[in-house]
């Protein structure tokens, strides 16, 4: 027994050490064999992990170049896994970056290829063709990435709700009117809806200079309304990143100019930020919810009642007329109500701004009838990957941007809006179509908040608003100014 046990123990020891040693050396062996052949890709959008993998497999089938794709988990932060992958024995040759905010890190580490200076002429042409406003560039000359897609956001509205609030045939005209309406007209409309929810009456209101009359009786659909806005008070990014971004558009044309903001530019943000605070005051005090109309206070920032999911549900259930969200929320809305998702379109987010506040050459009317559309993600090439891998990466990106592949993967598989959609491409959801309409009309704003200091918009300003203001029932004129002052001071300190 003793003898057998001894033998067994010795064998176990040897096997464990052997396994340990093999495990260590096998990785090195794999590296030597694979490095010159396999194209490693890092995908930061976990939501499309399966479709991304399929696209890579199709590329392999067509070109014979083996691929290995790594996707982060859905909703998971991509920066940490990307750094881990970069430190691994097989770093990705293609990885994705979320815009200008993440560029300094990878530029400083020397891991990013400037596409405007690659040898491959086709790649240079593709990079040159990217509209200037969509380029990943910190100096206006370099061009570091191929946009993954474009995303847009605004106030979503279920068109059928408008048809029921007014008469069906007025639906299109009302929506068009709301797109063009000034902030004051929009607020008058929201006040009228609030009043209608309490006491329905055939009241006539003016939208963009034209009169429209509410239906005297509520329908099954409008009976569910208990507030104007579906508001996610616990999600700082909705008012920290996205709403404040509209105000930043008054001074900055794009993320790059925000990144290089001057003292004077930051000072000229004061009035637009006061306007932003006023708009947020209005929105957060006219919220509907799954439990009924909501009041501003501690409950409004409880994640269990006013989180992202609850705001989506509140909109999809018809409790609120508008939801400030982007086209990425389509799938979530669809899960609650396919009909609402299919009938949702974007209206612009409006602020009480004047032409004098705007330094970009636009007018207040233009800004209040535009929605932010921007590139959330770029594919970039790892400059430290072996030469052959970089060449394969270029082949992959060129292959991916072929119109038929854009239609097949970007539109159909990833449910995204391509950054250069042509007429032959067919978008497959109502929100994407709505974004395309704004793009075609040239009524778009950009995403300067990507150029603000890291975490400024959401974790600094958004947090201040959540902790100190959204819990307060009344805001004063002084509060608006304090919010603007806090935002500007912190930006200056964080640079």
């Amino acid at each position, binding site marked *: 027994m003793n003898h057998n046990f001894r033998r067994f123990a010795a064998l176990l020891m040897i096997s464990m050490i052997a396994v340990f040693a093999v495990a260590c050396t096998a990785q090195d062996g794999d590296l030597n064999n694979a490095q010159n052949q396999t194209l490693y890709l890092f995908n930061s959008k976990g939501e499309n992990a399966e479709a991304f993998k399929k696209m890579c497999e199709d590329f392999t089938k067509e070109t014979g170049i083996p691929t290995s794709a790594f996707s982060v988990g859905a909703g998971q932060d991509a920066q940490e896994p990307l750094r881990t992958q970069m430190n691994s024995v097989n770093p990705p040759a293609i990885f994705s970056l979320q815009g200008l905010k993440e560029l300094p*890190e990878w530029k400083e580490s020397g891991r990013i290829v400037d596409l405007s200076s690659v040898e491959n002429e086709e790649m240079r042409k593709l990079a040159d063709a990217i509209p200037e406003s969509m380029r990943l560039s910190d100096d206006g000359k370099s061009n570091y990435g191929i946009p993954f897609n474009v995303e847009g956001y605004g106030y979503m509205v279920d068109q059928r709700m408008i048809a029921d609030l007014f008469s069906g045939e007025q639906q299109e005209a009302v929506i068009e009117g709301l797109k063009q309406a000034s902030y004051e007209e929009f607020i008058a409309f929201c006040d009228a809806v609030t009043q209608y929810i309490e006491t329905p009456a055939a009241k006539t209101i003016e939208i963009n200079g034209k009169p429209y009359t509410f239906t005297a009786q509520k329908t099954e659909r409008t009976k569910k309304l208990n507030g104007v806005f579906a508001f996610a008070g616990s999600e700082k990014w909705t008012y920290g990143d996205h709403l404040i971004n509209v105000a930043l558009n008054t001074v900055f044309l794009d993320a790059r100019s925000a990144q290089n903001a001057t003292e004077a530019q930051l000072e000229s943000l004061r009035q637009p930020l006061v306007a932003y605070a006023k708009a947020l005051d209005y929105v957060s005090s006219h919220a509907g919810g799954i439990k009924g109309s909501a009041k501003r206070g501690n409950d409004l920032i409880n994640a269990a009642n006013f989180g992202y999911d609850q705001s989506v549900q509140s909109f999809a259930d018809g409790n609120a007329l508008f939801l400030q969200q982007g086209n990425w929320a389509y799938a979530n809305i669809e899960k609650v109500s396919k009909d609402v998702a299919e009938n949702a379109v974007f209206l612009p987010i409006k602020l009480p701004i004047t032409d004098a506040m705007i330094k970009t050459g636009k007018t207040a009317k233009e800004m209040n009838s535009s929605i932010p559309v921007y590139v959330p993600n770029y594919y970039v090439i790892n400059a430290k990957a072996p030469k052959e891998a970089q060449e394969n990466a270029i082949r992959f990106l060129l292959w991916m941007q072929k119109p038929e592949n854009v239609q097949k993967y970007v539109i159909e598989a990833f449910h995204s809006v391509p950054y250069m959609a042509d007429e032959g491409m067919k978008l497959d959801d109502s929100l994407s179509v709505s974004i395309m309409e704004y793009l075609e009309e040239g009524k778009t704003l950009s995403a300067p908040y990507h150029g603000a200091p890291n975490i400024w918009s959401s974790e600094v300003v958004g947090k201040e608003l959540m902790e100190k203001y959204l819990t307060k029932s009344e805001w004063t004129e002084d509060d608006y100014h304090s919010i603007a002052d806090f935002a500007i001071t912190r930006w200056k300190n964080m640079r």
Partner: protein
Amino acid sequence: MERYYKKWFYLLVLPAVLLFVFVIGLPFVIGTIYSFTSWRGTYFAGGTLSESFVGLENYIQAFSDEQFIHSMIYTTAYTLVAVVAINIVALSFALMLGRIKRGVGLYRTVFFLPNMLGGLAMGFIWQFIFQVVYTDLLFSPDGLFHVEFLRFMTQDTTKALFALVIMTVWQSAGYMMLIYISGLNSIPGELYEAAEIDGAGPIRKFFTVTLPLLMPSITIVLFLTLANSFKLLDQNIALTNGDFNTRLMALQILRTIQDKTPPNYGVAQAQAVVFFVIVAVISLFQVSLTRRKEVEY
């Protein structure tokens, strides 16, 4: 058998030593070295490892960061309250289970079960409990009892500290109770009989017999609860996410990386080293102190 262990001692401990060296020892040493550099997660700002040495700059930055200092104070306050609360509850459970005759196994299982839940899952469950059950159902003006302090517990620095304590007591008390039960079971019954003959009441018996003889278990439980409280991360993320100034130290280190771009891993690493020193010193001090109180019989 003993001869066998003596002969093969080094070979037998080799796997454990290798694991410790590669999984804990080396990363710790590397991390400590990196805390003196401008490490950015995938590269050294300014060149190679040797070129990027910044001396004590990362430590100076860490200590001049108000949030880091606040998180240190907040973590210490939380740890003090949590350690006391967990120990009182766990010991009370153990003493109560020692008294009852039926259903002991069931109670043990029920009290132990929360320990099986992961930190994040538990944080989200308790977020719902604090935000809906406490705020709307139990302690609202229309609820069972109106207790304003117990409403919106995740929205205030002090209240959130108690919310974290309530949650971690619920999670850990069952596990610590098992250690106390085994400690209580090892106390010979005759000592209680002798104390009774000498005229000692239940309170006297607890302080003169139970507590001194339970010191080995108290040493272990105090060590575990101290270390776990200092290291708390997942529950902190899920319950408050650091809002309302509720960042504990582990979360503060994590957020330091996200606060700047490019991420300053050097400063985060310096914070981690300071964190390690604090936890190590306090834990060693506690173990040596409670060990001295242990009695032999």
